[in-house]
């Protein structure tokens, strides 16, 4: 398809740069990654076993139940996986998986792997961090970590509309944290009205984030973004 049209006196060439509004806050989402296809991950937490069998590019068998998934590679050996309405952060570097299953965080270690160590709670390690995650053109979320379980949040374009939200954070290791932020109903911002949870791996080395936005009335939105410190 040509991007120019003939006009009187010459041609008009349309710019390829665009706001990609059709993707909303999912605009910068990196290409989905398929490296896990054909792999099985078995992990254990509190004596309970969790198994993910990645059958193909679309479906995973999670504890015996087939469901669809999407995966973004965050870093070498580190994958953020949306498994239906749950999440698995698979960390081959530490032989660990952190699940968020029906809202509960489960830190598990690979079964039968020597030295495997489950991720742990981040405590107040993130307190003092004030960061903007840019998820698309003029679409971002500001997060200020004020306590081990509370943060101040604003979404573009309403920077002034700051709300205090609950969050939980898991230390993945090194610069990586998994942050699960509960959201209130939103109005006139770049995120959907019924946004319920924003769950993302935050990488403070590369200053990027990879995750998913869940809520009522819309399909989960996989996200990628870059940091601007505030």
């Amino acid at each position, binding site marked *: 398809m040509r991007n120019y049209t003939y006009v009187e006196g010459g041609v008009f060439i349309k710019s*390829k740069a665009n706001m990609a509004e059709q993707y909303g806050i999912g605009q910068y989402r990196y290409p989905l*990654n398929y490296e896990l296809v054909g792999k099985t991950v078995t992990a254990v937490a509190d004596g309970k076993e969790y198994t993910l069998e990645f059958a193909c590019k679309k479906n995973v068998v999670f504890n015996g139940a087939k469901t669809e998934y999407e995966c973004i590679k965050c870093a070498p050996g580190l994958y953020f996986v949306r498994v239906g309405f749950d999440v698995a952060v698979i960390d081959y570097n530490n032989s660990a998986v952190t699940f968020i299953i029906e809202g509960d965080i489960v830190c598990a270690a690979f079964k039968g792997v020597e030295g495997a160590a489950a991720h742990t709670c981040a405590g107040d390690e993130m307190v003092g961090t004030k960061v903007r995650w840019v998820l698309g053109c003029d679409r971002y979320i500001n997060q200020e970590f004020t306590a081990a379980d509370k943060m101040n949040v604003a979404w573009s374009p309403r920077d002034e509309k700051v709300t205090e939200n609950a969050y939980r954070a898991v230390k993945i290791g090194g610069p990586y944290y998994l942050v699960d932020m509960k959201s209130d109903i939103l109005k006139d911002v770049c995120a959907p009205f019924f946004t319920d949870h924003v769950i993302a791996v935050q990488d403070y080395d590369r200053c990027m984030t990879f995750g998913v936005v869940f809520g009522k009335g819309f399909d989960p939105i996989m996200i990628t973004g870059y940091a601007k410190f505030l």
Partner: protein
Amino acid sequence: MNLRDYPRPFYAINQFCQAHCSELKGQSFNFVMDGGYDYALNFTGETTLTWSINGAEPKEATFECVKGDETTYLVDFDVVELLDTDQRANELFVIDLDQRLVTRVYCHIGYNARLPYLIKSNYDFGAIVVEGKETPFKRHCYSSELIGTTVEWHWNYEMWTHHKYYDSDYYTLTWPDDSAAVQNLGGPFEMLPSHDDVTKVIKIKDTMYLFCLTEELMERVLQGPVFRCNNMIFLQNYDRMYHAGRTFGTVMMDGKTVPCRTLFGSFGNPIKLPDSVLYAENAYTV
């Protein structure tokens, strides 16, 4: 802890690059190329492959891979026998599984006695041969469709630059005063008569272009205060406004010339540039 202060290394253009993608491990490809030199790539491991031309003995290489979208891969590797010589060479392929098409860019250094670090790029187009399927006759192609596009590319959390695509063979680079590009790029680039440099644009699909840029003025005009010459190839996704790519060239570091090789990536947004930039003359062309 304010994680702004996390002890990270210095990043210039490589902070927002994708992690290496090893999805192609175990796959083999035969490319029929319009230039008459057909290629076979066999991805033997997560970072290793063998390659051969027209059925010759396969050679081994270590490859890098990033993705433009779910089905488009940018794969590149240095030619092993030329590493550590003055005539390094890099093979780059855009493997487009959706359209079963391929673009090859072969870049090499050391062909020019007077300007030894200058990089020459050769381009070829072809198709992926799949048994039982008709080989496509369409090809990726040179394109002028980026003309008129201006983008702000964010390379790391404090550096962004502006690209103006106004010609098939040249582009203009600028940056705003609040970008770390002022410190990271400023000096040497400001010594040039203008920030235009040599490009080639290849259309991969309606919303994806391979933007090939050779920073050769540093070598030709300034004799290399920073880059002796650097080739950057961007796989630009205008559907989502990001790109991924690689560099191949020679850079000055601590007074020595060393290979400049890195993967990079950035996120973009449309930018309205001032008329003084939009209508600036290219100082290198008549």
